[in-house]
């Protein structure tokens, strides 16, 4: 985490223009104001002191103001990050719910036709460029079939006040008379982008689940259980799935970084008001303050999910815990 802040801090030097302006985003400030800000950021002292005051500002939630919109970066992020969390979470769930069972099926039918087909399809799913997929999805599901909307988080007709930032919660907590209509509308809106984001990770989950299941099926305790006369179904559902799942969970964290990248591109195409969309707009506008903030936010988000999945894994798998704490 600290290395990350170091990275973003050094970014402010790499970007074109004045470093102090890049950090704070005060492009219209007069020279006197700049001098004041420079003092605030210990600009006249050593680099280490400058870094330190940068950290202090960071912990106070001060990331400067956006060069383009003049809104504090922190506020911008707070209004965009939840939408990304929502999209990635739903996508992750879809990817797991679809990918893992298919992977298990492939493993159970190892070296049969089903397995081959699943592998081939997952290979294509993994290779498909996300932006192309998104466009095709819009063409098929929004235009041809007219089932799902093509852009945005919810129809603008509904006016939902932002409280938590997570739209679904906001809708449920609001006292809007059209609450349920809004809720349905929001669900329909998230479906298409989430499926698009989910496709590639789902194929990865297929592979992970397949490998993991194969290892489990090959293990001694399964063979022992089989020798005891358990039916195949009992074997799979009672023993194998649980153990195979544990291994898959471990990789969820790693997949998440991938998922966020995909979400960034998808957000642009589906006009999703998330942080990826915002970040890419910031790049178009050369809003360096926003780029630093966005990088920091996205990477911290991924970090937190990493740590979180590690915990889940540890709590599910006594073996891993044993190694970690060296009991």
């Amino acid at each position: 985490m600290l290395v990350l802040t170091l990275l973003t801090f050094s970014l402010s030097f790499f970007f074109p223009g004045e470093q102090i302006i890049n950090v704070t985003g005060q492009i219209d400030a007069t020279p006197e104001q700049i001098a004041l800000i420079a003092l605030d950021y210990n600009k006249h002292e050593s680099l280490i002191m400058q870094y330190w005051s940068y950290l202090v500002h960071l912990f106070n939630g001060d990331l400067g103001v956006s060069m383009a919109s003049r809104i504090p970066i922190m506020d911008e992020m707070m209004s965009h990050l939840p939408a990304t969390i929502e999209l990635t979470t739903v996508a992750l769930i879809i990817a797991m719910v679809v990918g893992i069972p298919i992977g298990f099926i492939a493993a159970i039918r190892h070296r049969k036709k089903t397995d081959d087909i699943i592998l081939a399809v997952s290979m294509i799913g993994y290779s498909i460029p996300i932006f192309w997929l998104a466009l095709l999805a819009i063409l098929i599901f929004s235009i041809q079939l007219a089932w799902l909307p093509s852009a945005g988080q919810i129809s603008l007709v509904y006016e939902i006040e932002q409280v938590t930032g997570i739209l679904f919660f906001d809708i449920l907590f609001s006292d809007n008379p059209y609450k349920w209509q809004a809720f349905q509308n929001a669900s329909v809106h998230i479906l298409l982008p989430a499926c698009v984001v989910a496709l590639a990770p789902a194929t990865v989950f297929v592979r992970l689940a397949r490998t993991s299941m194969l290892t489990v099926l090959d293990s001694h305790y399964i063979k022992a259980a089989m020798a005891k006369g358990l039916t195949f179904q009992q074997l799979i559902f009672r023993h194998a799935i649980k153990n195979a799942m544990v291994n898959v969970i471990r990789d969820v964290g790693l997949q998440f970084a991938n998922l966020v990248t995909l979400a960034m591109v998808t957000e642009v195409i589906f006009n999703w008001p998330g942080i990826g969309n915002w970040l890419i707009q910031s790049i178009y506008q050369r809003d360096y303050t926003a780029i630093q903030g966005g990088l920091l936010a996205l990477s911290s988000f991924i970090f937190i999910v990493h740590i979180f999945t590690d915990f889940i894994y540890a709590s599910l798998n006594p073996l891993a815990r044993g190694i970690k704490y060296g009991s």
Partner: protein
Amino acid sequence: MARDKTYTEEEFPSPLVQLWHNFKQSPAVMIGFGCFIFLVLLAIFSPLISPYSPIENNLDAILLPPAWHNDGDVSYLLGTDNLGRDMLSRLMHGASLTFGLSFIVVILSMFVGVIIGSISALTKGVKSSFLNHFLDVILSIPSLLLAIIIVAILGPGLSNTLWAIVIILIPQFIHITRNAVVQEFKKDYVLASKLDGASNIRILYYSIYPNIIEKMISQATLAQSAAILDIATLGFLGLGAPIPMPEWGAMLANGIDLFYIAPWTVYLPGLAILFAVVATNLVGEGMRHALKVRKEH
């Protein structure tokens, strides 16, 4: 006069040759490999064989659909775009940009990565552990995000995109080289040559590299498929190749405005990217499979 062999020597094929033996077992992989070779050739020779110029406008033939369509024209096999440029020629040139450049990018970053990785494998202590942690951070940031940031620093443009992708691929290679080298160093044959008095560099060059090269190649295919997608994505987002260049991602972005008038300007570049990535992945898949088979024997 040729000397008769005194002893019947058992030929030990080199690791690469062994790999090739296992590699060519699967037909799917061979198809992928064929496609891969085809793309490489296309990337090299596209300027010679493409029928039209990829950037010059031809306003007499705007938005022609592909030849199989009723209004299509056989001389423009895959149709034309809104400036009358032949799609086929653009796609062919795109092969050298998107695919060919990704190839070069991967080789560059592999070269740098292997050197740094080997050095770090041989050093110990604070320096090495700092490098390790630094790499962990870099690897935890999504590669595309990092590429976008680097492009933001350098400014948009094709060459900047390429540098960005080289930089983000290097850590992967450092990581894998380091691990592989450390692993190999523990093996007996390295100890043997050490006892012979070979220097570290000599050991690296003669004993270790031949044994880890296949791992590198397998990682390189992974990196290449990522590189193709990244170049295309950056092009699509308008941060990569500048406007007239027939880079596949940028072509696709250009086609979006014509999506409803001329859908082929969107379908074709997308298919091209898909084709290139699938071919690369098939090769990589076959490589990993062959590696596994060899390890098992």
